[in-house]
């Protein structure tokens, strides 16, 4: 009897997860060695010092804490303490806005660059220079000039997600097969119509690949940006829990960041499949 590939892959995945969780659990068990101390002194100390509890939380600690968060994801205890659901919503909102602005700027600009060899060459040095700049390098400059921390965070999302989209759009547009454009020309199709009916569909898969890379970058950036400016968002949550040296909550945040990032990527992957065409 042979199982389908899919099922076998699932079994291997689960086995790997079990091995990982098991070794994590074993690695973070209490060491049990503690110095002798008076009860009065012990009362003032943390569990690591009194019971030899590992400074790293085990999978059970994380699971219990995660359950606590999942039970009430939308509580609001004032400006500095909100549920994980609210924090994630803030982050997704910021990413969405910054990313949308990037789309609005990058795709028309990319079209222009792709259709005009002159622009392509003229803008290339700037794009190459700006592309590799780390998001956090932009942050102080943004805070200083924009003078508003939440707009700065959105600006940083924008500036970091704009380049892959721009380059991919330009590449996709420039790579549309000459025959198709020539056919359109022969049929006397105008420039605007040609752009929308011939070039856009032909370049769409490449453009969407760029957009997919960009959303990944935007989601990477938001955590760093929010850790820096604080206030709200999942990045702020990580910072706040780091401040409390709560590694358990930091791990939970990492897990959720990964999950949301994966979902965003999947959404764009689906769009990409929708516009892909067989040649």
């Amino acid at each position: 009897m042979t199982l389908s590939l899919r099922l076998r892959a699932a079994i291997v995945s689960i086995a790997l997860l079990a091995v990982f969780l098991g070794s994590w659990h074993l690695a973070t068990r209490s060491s049990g060695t503690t110095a002798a101390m008076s009860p009065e002194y012990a009362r003032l100390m943390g569990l690591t010092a009194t019971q030899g509890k590992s400074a790293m939380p085990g999978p059970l600690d994380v699971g219990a804490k995660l359950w606590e968060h999942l039970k009430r994801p939308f509580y609001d205890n004032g400006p500095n303490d909100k549920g994980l659901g609210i924090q994630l919503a803030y982050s997704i909102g910021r990413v969405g806005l910054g990313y949308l602005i990037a789309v609005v700027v990058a795709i028309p600009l990319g079209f222009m660059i792709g259709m005009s060899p002159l622009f392509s060459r003229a803008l290339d040095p700037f794009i190459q220079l700006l592309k590799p700049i780390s998001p956090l390098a932009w942050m102080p400059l943004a805070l200083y000039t924009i003078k508003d921390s939440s707009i700065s965070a959105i600006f940083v999302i924008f500036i970091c997600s704009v380049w892959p989209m721009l380059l991919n759009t330009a590449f996709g547009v420039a790579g549309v097969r000459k025959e198709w454009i020539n056919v359109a020309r022969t049929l006397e199709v105008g420039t605007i119509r040609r752009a929308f009916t011939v070039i856009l569909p032909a370049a769409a898969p490449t453009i969407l690949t760029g957009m997919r890379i960009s959303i990944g970058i935007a989601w990477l950036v938001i955590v760093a940006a929010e850790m820096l400016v604080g206030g709200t968002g999942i990045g702020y949550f990580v910072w706040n829990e780091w401040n409390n040296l709560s590694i358990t909550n930091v791990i939970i945040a990492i897990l959720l960041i990964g999950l949301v990032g994966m979902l965003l990527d999947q959404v764009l992957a689906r769009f990409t499949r929708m516009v892909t065409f067989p040649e």
Partner: protein
Amino acid sequence: MSTFDDPFDADRALLRSGCACGRHRSAAEHVRAARTPRCEPVADLSEQKRYEGIVASAVMRAVFPQDVARRAFLKSVGAATALAALSQFVPLKTATEAFADAGPPEKKDLKVGFIPITCATPIIMAAPLGFYARQGLDVEVVKTAGWAVIRDKTINKEYDAAHMLAPMPIAISLGLGANAIPFTVPAIENINGQGITLAIKHKDKRDPKDWKGMKFAIPFDYSMHNYLLRYYLAEHGLDPDTDVQLRSVPPPEMVANLRADNIDGFLAPDNICQRAIYDGVGFLHILSKEIWDGHPCCSFAASREFITTAPNSFAALTRAIVDATGFAAKAENRKQIAEAIAPANYINAPVTVLEQVLTGTYADGLGGVKTDPKRVDFDPFPWQSFAVWMLTQMKRWGQIKGDVDYKAVAEQVYLATDTKKVMAEMGLTPPTSSYKSFSVMGKTFDPAKPDDYLASFKIRKSS
């Protein structure tokens, strides 16, 4: 000249020049008078009289910007005539009434930034315990990711006022590490409340002379932590710039770095010191109190622009902070405060840790329980001599180059006069002078002679 002095007395300086307390024409005269009752404040005036004095001072200052001219005028016509003459042009009585009745705050919804450490106790607790609400303010206290961010957000006006390290408003006003923007300190947040924490492995290295080559963390360059640690090291013969390494590290990362063996110790604000002990990675070498008992640590800061655009809000805010600080100063309230500020919305730390810091009964990390109720204390008065001391240290370590007008900077930034007014309004007894002498590690600091003090240090950055 004190706010409460008589502006119609020709013998007194109206402008704030001359001696340290402002009541004498020169520093020499001040020293002569220091031990005589002449330096006592005009304490027996009624409130109405006091306000009249303040307003009249302001008017006289405006009419006669030059002291010489005012004196000549008063000498020739006499104080009574001068008062009568002035009253004709300026409705002194109305102005006095307007001043005494502070009026409703121009802006009720305020944002105040804070860093989650126990130094921010009065700023934080004023929210859950209702001190802001009592002044008719709706204040949102916002946790902020670091000192540089709090500086930028306050300069950007996202915050109306903020928790800052005591030297930061001076540094911002002077344009050190930021654009020069006039900032002010109407109240000191806390005094004492820091410590030198070392990694457990150094528990036998209690003599700082053995610390050569060690790595220490401080939270920010313009901080009392930096100046106190440098002072302490230098007093023990170590040059903080060459014999050890000082790193700027955000407080929570200090504990993690100590655990990871990246640093050997730190001079940090509490609750961080106690947290390192609580987690079993460090021990308390000394409290900062043992370096300078009563030293300022953090401040409550606002830009001068905020004061001029919303003077009533500013006054109400200062009253709330002074009030909260007074409440925090009482030992019997400390447990309640620890519980109020421990949740995730505020400091986000275990209550046990905060309680140890605030009540002063704490584990020292070496197996002993110690008690010092003044481990952290609260006294809002912004002594201008504190600012002068900080300026001497900024100069000592090369943060400021060239000549410094110590007094002018101290008086522009540390609003001792305004705080006195607020304290008096609240029925507290503010100190009579704005300068006081104190001693740091047994060495007396005379705020009137900052340059001599500075010159007396052997270890300093050569400039």
